[in-house]
């Protein structure tokens, strides 16, 4: 039994790493299930049992974290950032960002204007600790 959980955890870690690396690409449950070598029907449940949230939610938080950095540290239009981080509609991006961060992208950008350096940390730290909580 224990080896089963260890094996499951490792498979799920591979799929989470895939989301961390390829967040800007269209990733869906069948594609991620193939990375884990398990059936799509089981994948989301096993991911949630391993990491405490659905793969969809994890990917949303990863994309929003990337968007937060681009909003803080570049002057690029929100629409471009939305597509850069993997969302395919501005409406979905804005709604998801607001739900997770608590304010819309433009307000978040204004809040960090001129003080982006406050969160300038190594990429690994940003990925793990600046990703907004679920």
């Amino acid at each position: 039994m224990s080896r089963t959980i260890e094996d499951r955890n490792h498979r799920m870690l591979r799929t989470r790493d895939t989301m961390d690396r390829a967040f800007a690409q269209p990733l869906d449950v069948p594609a991620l299930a193939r990375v884990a070598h398990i059936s799509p029907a089981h994948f989301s449940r096993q991911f949630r049992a391993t990491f405490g949230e659905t793969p969809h939610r994890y990917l949303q938080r990863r994309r929003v974290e990337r968007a937060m950095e681009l909003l803080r540290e570049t002057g690029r239009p929100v629409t471009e950032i939305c597509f850069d981080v993997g969302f395919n509609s501005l409406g979905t991006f804005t709604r998801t960002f607001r739900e997770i961060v608590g304010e819309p992208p433009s307000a978040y950008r204004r809040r960090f204007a001129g003080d982006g350096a406050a969160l300038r940390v190594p990429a690994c730290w940003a990925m793990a600790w600046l990703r907004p909580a679920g």
Partner: protein
Amino acid sequence: MLKKISHTFIHVLDQDEALDFYVGKLGMVVHTDADLGVMRFLTVNLPDQPDVELVLMLPGPPAYDDATATEIRELVAKGAAGGGVIFETDDCRGTYERLRGAGVEFTQEPTERFYGTDCALRDPFGNPIRFTQPPEGPIVVPSAEELQAQA
């Protein structure tokens, strides 16, 4: 006064597989491989840094009871054990290409950052590994204006 870090520890799930990776792929060398009867004390170091050993520990009795060892193994496998290693390199992209050619999977491609060029991978068990090529000259945290100008 404490002088330096001489040993640091990481949990691995199979010591032979760990040697294949840390020595065979990453290019470290075996410092100590001693059968103590109750455990195999296995350490590796970088060829250019013989005085810093990375201890490759297999969780299990007598240090940990079976149930605890199982928990540790499960945490390592989901990347949550807390251990990890960050190396410095003089050639991030070249090392990345060489390791990719050797079948190593990366979790982050080489990326330019203010602190250098770095990339990320995992060992075969789930422990995070990074290697960073520092920039030439001092590390300067750029201002928001400078970053925006680069973007």
